[in-house]
């Protein structure tokens, strides 16, 4: 039995890196400390795709990695508008090969930000993001605001490692000298812990942000008595707490990005932060979902110039979410082939897009089966990043951390699968050129 420390979790955007596991007979047998229950479950492993396979007449037939990779390459090389989607639950090394492949075949490369914090990225492209690393929040923040986010459920270690309950240099007493404000449409588990809970009407985030901004800038007179279901009195109290803080931090989630004004809600949240910053130090951060969605955004950006929804069909990058995002392409039935890696559109995409996805050739690369597996035409099982394969990931605050390899495996890592597909595609194209 071997004990491994400083293990890095490959589940959510918290990327906790102080986990201790026990490994015996090439299996993770125990997670001793550091991981939340969901992270633990991933590290211990569960049902996975056992073998590469190719679907023939509706049934999956097991085959070798070589055969599956060859078939995948054939499909992608022939496509006129292929989509390479996912990337958020694998390592940057694999992401890079994905971008290279997209360029090689003139594909659209997109990632889960499209259905998650894509709106936050759009907002950042409009107004920027005044932010910091998570350790800054841990050491300095005396006011923490969760807006449209419920970390108690979705990012279980967040408050304890980084924000409200955590202890740091100027926050030695944990939550004792801190204030927690939660803004949401219903009283979530996180809201129950809050000093101030603003219950807001669905879809009214934009209006509430505008009101807070006006108040922070000194124009409270123009603001009506009630905005979005929140009383002016409560808004003024919130503004007071914001002004009095030494270091305020706003974390926001899908409640902001996925309701009525979407990315413009985020723009308004950021502008509210900037208005607060005229009084005191204030920062804001999106609660990234997958452990390496920030990573594919980074890789895609430094390699193509853009973070997601990148169309390389004309040989150069064209970026336009709303036109090029995977869901847009699929709902409009634009793609004629798709590679789905390290993600699960089957579970998250609108029905119309899944309908089309199930009609075109789909290659799935993943360690685990999911709804997308039901209709994938080529299945390539991958090694589990962070357990069976190492590599670089970016935490929700964009800090890069290296996942460790804990056990050996027969399964092939994403990076190598991608490299072999790319090689095969190049061989096919060279032959065509002859």
């Amino acid at each position: 039995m071997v004990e491994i420390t400083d293990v890095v979790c490959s589940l959510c955007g918290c990327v906790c890196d102080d986990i201790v596991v026990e490994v015996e007979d090439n299996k993770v047998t125990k997670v001793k400390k550091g991981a939340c229950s969901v992270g633990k479950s991933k590290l211990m492993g569960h049902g996975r795709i056992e073998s590469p396979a190719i679907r023939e007449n509706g049934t999956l037939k097991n085959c070798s990695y070589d055969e599956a990779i060859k078939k995948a390459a054939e499909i992608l090389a022939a496509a006129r508008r292929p989509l390479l989607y996912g990337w958020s639950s694998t390592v940057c090394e694999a992401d890079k090969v994905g971008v290279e492949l997209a360029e090689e075949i003139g594909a659209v490369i997109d990632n889960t930000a499209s259905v998650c914090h894509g709106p936050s990225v759009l907002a950042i492209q409009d107004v920027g993001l005044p932010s910091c690393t998570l350790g800054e929040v841990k050491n300095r923040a005396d006011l923490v605001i969760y807006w449209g986010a419920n970390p108690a459920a979705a990012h279980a270690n967040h408050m304890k490692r980084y924000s409200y309950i955590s202890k740091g240099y100027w926050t030695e007493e944990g939550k004792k000298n801190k204030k927690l404000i939660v803004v949401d449409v219903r009283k979530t588990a996180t809201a129950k812990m809050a000093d101030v809970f603003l219950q807001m009407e669905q879809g009214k985030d934009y209006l509430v942000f505008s009101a807070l901004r006006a108040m922070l800038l000194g124009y409270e007179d123009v603001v009506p008595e009630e905005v979005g279901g929140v009383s002016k009195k409560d808004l003024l109290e919130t503004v007071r707490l914001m002004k009095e803080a030494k270091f305020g931090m706003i974390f926001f989630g899908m409640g902001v990005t996925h309701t009525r004004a979407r990315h413009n809600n985020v723009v308004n949240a950021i502008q509210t932060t900037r208005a607060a910053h005229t009084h005191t130090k204030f920062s804001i951060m999106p609660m990234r979902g997958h452990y390496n969605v920030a990573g594919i955004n980074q890789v895609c950006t430094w390699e193509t110039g853009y973070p997601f929804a990148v169309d390389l069909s004309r040989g150069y990058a064209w970026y336009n979410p709303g036109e090029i995002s995977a869901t847009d392409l699929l709902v409009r039935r634009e793609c004629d082939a798709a590679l789905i890696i390290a993600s699960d559109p089957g579970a998250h995409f609108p029905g119309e897009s899944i309908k089309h996805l199930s009609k075109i050739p789909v290659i799935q690369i993943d360690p685990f089966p999911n709804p997308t597996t039901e209709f994938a035409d080529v299945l390539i099982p991958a090694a589990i990043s962070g357990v069976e394969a190492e590599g670089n990931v970016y935490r929700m605050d964009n800090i890069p951390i290296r996942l460790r390899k804990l056990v050996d495996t027969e399964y092939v890592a994403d990076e190598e699968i991608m490299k072999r597909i790319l090689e095969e595609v190049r061989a096919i194209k060279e032959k065509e050129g002859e």
Partner: protein
Amino acid sequence: MAEGELLIRNGVVYDPINGVNGEKKDISIRDGKVVEEVMNPKVIDAEGRVVMPGGVDIHSHIAGAKVNVGRLFRPEDGRKGREAKTKVCRAQSGYSVPNTFATGYRYAKMGYTFVMEAAMPPLAARHTHEEMVDIPILDNAAMPLIDNNWMTMEYVKSGDTDLLAAYIAWMIKATKGYGVKVVNPGGTEAWAWGKNCDINDAVPYFDVTPAEIIKGLAEATEKFEMPHSIHVHGNMLGHPGNFETTLATYDLVKGIKPYRDRPAMHATHTQFHSYGGTRWGDFESKAGAIADYVNKNEHLSIDIGSIILGDTTTMTADGPMEYSLYQITGRKWTNHDVELETGSGITPFLYSGKSPVNTVQWAIGQELALLIKDPWKLALTTDHPNAGPFIGYPIIISMLMSKKRREESAEDMHSVIYDRAELPSIDREYDLNEIAIITRGMAAKTLGLHEHGKGHLGVGADGDVAIYDISPEERDAGKIQKAFLNTKYTIKGGEVVVKDGEVVATPAGRTIFVTPECDDKLTEEMMVKLKDKFDHYYSVTFNNYPVQDAYLPNPYEIKAPWRS
């Protein structure tokens, strides 16, 4: 390095490190290195054209966290520089924040073969390395920020120079960095509370001044045989009247003795630190005062940080300065404070010839180059992309070489240039030898890279050569600018990578890093304090912090022993 032999004949060579000043000379290369002679080479006939060692850029923001912030939040900059992929090149995008592939190709096309990434936030060092690996052709290195770090400030306060040296050594090793970078010392830690520091202000809670930090770091750095001195972006960057802070900053290292013949401080993008006046309304150039100081002193070197007109993206670890810039323009602004270490701010900025302030700024960078008598004391930079994109270097070269061009350009600028700047009254013109010094020779020497094959064409040097499509007699500024933008040939490690202004090969570059060697006992003592930081204040573990070998597929190590 390429195998085989290459002979460049009939070129007029400018190799200032070896005293070669416009000599008709053959350059022989075998297996990637310059040799005395070759037997059966591939021959390139330079046909009387200007030949220089590959360019060495001492300060540019090309890889890492804030550079990528710039790219990510400026899709509108992305679509400016877009070029479709070719058989050889990946797709390119961006103008002031080019993607990594465009960065490599465009520098190589200008004849550069080495670029120093100016500032690496240590906690995000892996990011800098990931991007550097994706920059084709160029050899590179990066300087970690070690001045706003809590460990640094605590050791400066307690006066423990040896322990500070141990910390510096650990940091440079952990980040696979090149040397000590200093940016707005103390001020960026103050910014984590929304404040800032001038050179003698005490940093909140840490109770040290930026002056003490700079002096402490200079002393600690010189405990080792470090190839490069501390590299300093001083306090009050960009503020009218800051030249006094600048001169005070330079004085701090007067008594410090570096281990070899190099300055004790490299002061970077000096244009931004040469401001007179008391506010924007009476803003004027103090390049004269700065140049005067540099002329009279030997303990410092500078790079100019000269303005290129147009829209660009500013990005520095000077968080408070970036915030004030955003307050002036109201444009998008990203801030990223990094726990226990540093911070950064990124915001777009337009330098316009119609603006009186921008006009004076534009003049200052060139004034510094023209008023400093010894070109070995300065390097040509634009602090890319802060004062402008690196693709503008040929414009500056043509300005320095042609009084006529400067006069013509001044006519298109705001008339304030005749009152608040000195440029119109300066007649000096640079010759090619001086250009070679400020674009390769000086940088290589100041970085210590001339001892590792860069910046010269003596026997043993790397086979990095730039052949510019002009004759040495060329005086036309337009032709000079054009020639320095796209080489006739760029050769990297003996391989032709650019021909007739097109990239023809994209070999991977190497990452050069320094390993300072520190006494075990000192290191052990320092570790106690450092581990405490990781146990209580960092958000990552001690063991997960250092940059793993996997991030440097092509490493080149330089050892820096403890000075005896």
